[in-house]
Each structure stands twice: as C-alpha cells, then as structure tokens.
C-alpha cells in the first residue's frame, strides 16, 4: 500500500469527519432537546482521533522516526491530543458544552495543516543532527500532549465564563478543599424533619422523640462542573508541561551542555508554566475565586499559542526546525 497517498486521504478524511462533528455539537447546544446529537458528536471525535492516529502511524512507518519533527506532523499530533483530551473531559463532565468548545479548535488545526500549509511542508523530511536522539520522542510528545490538555482546559474556562456571565460565583475545587461545603446553610425548618414514632406500649399516645436529622447530597451545578473539569484538565496538562520542560532541559544539558539558555521557545514554555502556576494558586486564594482564575486560564490559552507557534514565526533560537523560514 502507498503510505503517502494513505496519509493524504486520511488528513482529508479527518477534516470531513470533524466538520459534521462540529455542526452536531453546535446544533446540540442550540437545541438541547435533540438528545442524539451529542452522542454522534462523541463518535465523530473518536473516529477523527483514530484517523489521525493512523495518519501519524503511517508517517512513522514511512519516515522511520517518531512523527513530530515538522509543522504538519506536530499540528496533527496536537489535534490528535486535543480530541483525546476532549473525550476524557467529556466523559468526566458529561456535558455537551465541551465539544462545542473543542471541536472548532480541532477542526481549525486540521484545516490549517491539511489545506493551508504548502505541499513541501507536508512531506516527511530527514531529521537534522540535533534532533537525532531518543529524547525527541520523550520531550516533544509530552510537550504536545500538555499543550493539548492546557488548550482544552482553558477553553472550558472560557465556556465557564460564558455560562456564568453576569452572576457572582464561588469556585469550589481547589487544593485547600473549600469547595466541599454546603453553599446554602441548611434551613432547619424545611430540612430537619421531626420523626414521630409510636412507642409500643403507650396505648396509642404519640410520643415525640428526639428529632432525627435527614440529609440529602447537594450536587454541583453546570458552572461548577465545567469549572472543576477545566481545573482537572489543566491540572493534568500542568504536570505534563513540567515534565516536558524538564525533559527538554535534561536533553539540552546532555546534547549542548546547558540545561537552560533562555532561548525564546524555552522562555515561552516557562511563561506558560508560570501563567498556569498562577492559575492554580489563584484558585486557592481567598478573595481571588470566582472569575479571576478563569480569566487567567483564558490568558493562558493565548500564551500556549504564542509558545507553540508564535516563537517559531520569529525563526530564532534552538527550536527553529521545520517551520517557516
């Protein structure tokens, strides 16, 4: 079988699947009573995910190295990661809003990679000497998955901002655990029922006994759920980003003798790390809860893009491989 033509048909197929998937999710949000649509959307995301996995696998077989060495491959790897994290976030939250936020992003990335990139940049090319290392797989793949998780997580924060616009809200999930307490103090008159029990030998006289407390769980609202899933997905991306940066630092030290050289890409990865660290800390700060962390995460969305693409547009530094220059 011709691997190159297989790749070409797979990248178009991914686009062809993601477009109706996006429409399903959006229609599903606009018409909440159409029950089947989110399930179709989930299936579309899963199929697109498998198509991209097959595309990258074919590329791996053809080129003989892990396929994230140029922009085309890395965009598909990112879109693959996005769809994978999307499926995870959707399963966690059970909300159809997740797809409404993530499917346009995945579609946009695939469309850019498959149609906008010039043909020369879509072909597999041999690795430059600096990239010939097992660290490539470790460092780049972890970084890409972390970008995917951070993008999905910050998109969910955007969704949270949209859902809660015009309301005062107290965030719940945080590492100090203030979120597990009841938001409304129990109203004793309505929530405490005084149980009366007949006592056996008192001949029909009802004896008022000690009141027995009745409790029912208070469940999370949609905004709380979105917020917590956003927090968990960013919480997943953050360790991956940390490990990816450290893997890059160790690789740089093994290859060039310097674990940190303030190269623009390195610096922006650090900036991304700092912004999301600020987000994680803002969540546990009294008086800073509510919308502020979500706004920080939204800023983080832009910072991830600057780190992933913006730095390479400058064409400077250690990381200018296989890009526009």
């Amino acid at each position, binding site marked *: 079988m011709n691997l190159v033509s297989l790749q070409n048909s797979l990248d178009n197929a991914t686009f062809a699947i993601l477009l109706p998937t996006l429409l399903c999710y959006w229609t599903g949000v606009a018409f909440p009573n159409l029950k089947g649509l989110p399930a179709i959307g989930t299936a579309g995301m899963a199929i697109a995910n498998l198509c991209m996995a097959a595309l990258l696998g074919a590329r791996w077989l053809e080129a003989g190295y892990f396929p994230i060495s140029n922009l085309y491959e890395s965009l598909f790897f990112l879109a693959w990661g996005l769809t994978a994290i999307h499926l995870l976030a959707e399963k*966690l939250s059970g909300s159809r809003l997740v797809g409404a936020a993530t499917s346009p992003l995945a579609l946009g990335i695939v469309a850019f990679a498959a149609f906008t990139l010039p043909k020369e940049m879509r072909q597999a090319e*041999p690795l*430059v*000497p*600096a990239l*010939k*290392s097992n*660290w490539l797989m470790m460092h780049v793949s972890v970084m890409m998955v972390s970008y995917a998780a951070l993008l999905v997580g910050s998109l969910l924060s955007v969704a949270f901002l949209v859902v809660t616009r015009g309301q005062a809200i107290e965030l*719940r*999930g945080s*590492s*100090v*655990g203030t*979120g*597990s*307490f*009841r*938001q409304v103090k129990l109203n004793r008159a309505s929530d405490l029922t005084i149980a009366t029990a007949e006592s056996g030998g008192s001949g029909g006289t009802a004896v008022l006994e000690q009141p*027995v*407390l*009745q*409790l*029912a*769980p*208070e*469940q*999370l609202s949609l905004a*709380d*759920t979105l917020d*917590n899933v956003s*927090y*968990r997905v960013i*919480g*997943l991306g*953050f*360790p991956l980003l*940390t*490990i990816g940066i*450290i893997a890059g*630092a*160790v690789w740089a*030290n*093994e*290859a*060039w*003798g*310097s674990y*940190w050289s*303030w190269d623009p890409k390195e*610096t*922006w990865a650090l*900036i991304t790390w*700092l*912004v999301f660290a*600020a987000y994680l*800390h*803002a969540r*546990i*700060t009294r008086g800073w809860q509510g919308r502020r962390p979500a706004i920080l995460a939204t800023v983080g969305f832009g910072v991830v893009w600057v780190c992933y693409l913006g*730095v390479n547009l400058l064409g400077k530094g250690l990381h200018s491989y296989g890009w526009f220059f």
Partner: protein
Amino acid sequence: MTSDPLASPSFADRWRRGQQLFWTWLADLRLAILLLLAIAIASATGTVIEQGQSLAFYQENYPTDPALFGFLSWRWILSLGLDHVYRAGWFLGLLILFGASLTACTFRRQWPALRAAQRWQFYQEPRQFTKLALSASLPQGKLDSLEPLLLQRRYRLFRADDVLYARRGLAGRVGPILVHAGMLVVLGGAIWGSLGGFYAQEMIPSGETFQVRNIVDAGPWSGSRIPQDWAVKVNRFWIDYAPDGRIDQFYSDLSVVDREGQEQDRQTIHVNQPLRYGGLTFYQADWAIAAAQVRLNNSPVLQLPMAQLPAAGRIWGTFVPTKPDLSSGVSLIAKDLQGTAVIYGSNGEPLGTLRKGMAIEVEGIRLSLVDLVGSTGLQIKSDPGIPWVYAGFLFVMVGVVCSYVSHAQVWALEQDGQLYIGGRSNRALVAFEQEMLAVLAQLDAQSNHSAETAIA
C-alpha cells in the same frame, strides 16, 4: 527586672511583631501570584527586545524620537537592563524573592495543611455532617455494608464501633511540598553551578592536541576545575552526509592524553553524545574547514590553512600560489567537507570545480586536491551544580504528579437507625461526586434488598 505592662511595647516586641508581619506578607498567596506573573512578563520582554546587542544596535532600532509606544527608547532599555533581562539585577532579585516566598509558603501554609490532614477525627454527631455538601442520611444503612464499598475504591479505613473515617490520596497533600522543595534545590544548584563552574569553546583541526584554555565564562570558584595535567587529541573530525547533500551527523574521534602522551580514554562523540572526563563534558557544537591539502604537479602534499570568508556565510577559502615567488595564484573555495572545491583565477573568474583525488590544469600547473581537513568546534563545560539541579528536577516531577491526586475523605456515623455519610475532596469534585452518589445508590439498593428479604 519587670517591665511595666502599660508602657509602650519594647523594641523586642515590636521586632517580633514586625517579623511576624514580614513572614505573613512573604507567605501570602497573592504575593506568590504577583511574582509568578511578574517573572512571566519580565521573561517575555527578553524574547521581544533583542538581547546582548551593541549600543549602536539599540540606538538604531529604538530611537528616542519617536520612541516605541511613546516611551521605549534605547535610553530606557539600557538603564533598565532590558538588553540583558536574564542577568539584570532586578530580575535576579525577583527570582530570589520568589525563592523566599516559596520557602515561607512551604513552612507557613503547606506543612500545616499536611499536618491538619493527618490529624483527622471521627464525626460523632449528625450535625457535623450538615456542613458537607455531599452528605446524606440513609435509613437502615449499615456501616458494615459501607466498608467494602470504600475498600473497593482504595480508601484507607479507620473504624471505631459506630463511627468511620476513610481517606484516599494523602499524596496530593505531599505533592506541592515536594514541588516547592525541588524548585528550591534547582535554584540552589543553578547558583552553585554559576559560582563553581566554567564554560569554554575550542576550534581544533583534525589531528591536533589541545588543552582547555579559551574560557568564555567562569565562576569565581571555578579555578581548580580547569584541567592542568591532561589534554585532548582530536584524532579525526568528519561529517556524514545524506545522499541529497544534507548533513546527517558530525563526529569527532577524541583521545584524552596525559602529560607523557599516554592515552587515558578514547571516544567518538557526536551531537547528543558528548565525552565526559575528569568532571568536564565535551560537546560537539560547531565545525569549520581548517586546511586544504593540495599537490602542485608532482610536489609533496602541501597543507594550506583555510579561512572563513567574511560576510559570506559558511564558506572557506585559501590562496594557492602557482609561481614559486607567490606573485600569482588561484583561490580555492569550499563550503563543506564533501570533497569538492571551486577554483577561481586571480581575476575572480571561476576556473572549474575540483573533486578530492582529482586534478585540474590552472595557469600551466596541475593542481590536485588531496583532502579537505575539518576542525571540530567543541563546547567544554564543567558545572558542579548539575547533580543538585537533576535531583531538584526529580523532586519537582514526582511532586507535580502527586499534586494531581485528589485528597478525598469520607465520614460515617450510625445513629438512631440512620447511617450518616458525608465526604469532601479537594481537587476532583466532579469525580468524587460521582463516586459518592454511586456509593449511596449501592447502599440504598442493599438496604432495600435486605428490607425486602426481612419482610419475606
């Protein structure tokens, strides 16, 4: 000696109080967030404004009139140190303040939080459950049927008669402490490395022996680490090319030799595969063309040094005399080590291409190219901070993974024919809610089942 309680507070009291305030300020999360964002913004300026350029460069690109955004002129850039952000005093000051804030936060917030998490207690009263969002009362619920459900979900149980406490994921409380400690170790290792380490560069032609002398940057305590009693011989430097002319890999075959010229170690290095010896690491970093070996008619092999041509990129050239008095000659130009050179006449006319082992007739002389000799560009580094930095990296990685774990706690009490259950979690609220609701549903089903069997 007793102090009058009505007198103004003594100096010692005010000092203690001031200290207290200082530590509270330093451990404040809002300060930490501010520092994180300040370091992020400062780092970003360093990627936007060109670093380490000449005064003339900044004067040309950042004129005072019109200044960029109305204020960003070269005077501002130089006085704020924005031409070398990452070495500027105020940036290092920010990093030190950040380290101090990390330390204060660890001792004043994280450590107490971990201790508090370890000092759990049973809930003995139903009203204690009312503050928890995920709390419920089940008529006829039994602690005995709750226990296996929690064990199944990997909780650790503590039970006394009719009360129960269960927890899972205490690692989530340890993780952030490990991350903070690891970052402090990394910062410490970086400082130690910059004080006690050095960094050198050498460009050595194939076949020569050198000692590390061209020190580019050295810390104040690095003197003893520069090797005096051994040298390195470059046995050979070569480049492997792919069939399409692209560079596949650079190789240097290096020997470590002692004063008597005895070989102590021998390794072939390439990019991503350095040589380590005596606390130093030799990295393959650069290359150049050192010399061309040529023969004129039947002369012995002449080695002519090649020089990089100014302002022409990576192109090297040499002058090959064609008359014994050097009054006339040709130029030999090469741009890689693939064994091809181009010959230009004295008037600049191209005379032809010369391949290794071939000859060309120029100005009445048969010029043959025997070989092109490469130089290897080595980066040499000694960094005593590396073990610390790596240890810190390990702490940070383990800690950051642990930090994802959500600490979940469940309390239960059997009283008045009711089973009270309540739980809380610090991170995964959605997943914990699903888990608790599932446990409640299972308990409900079990008690209904047992009630039915009791009736039957």
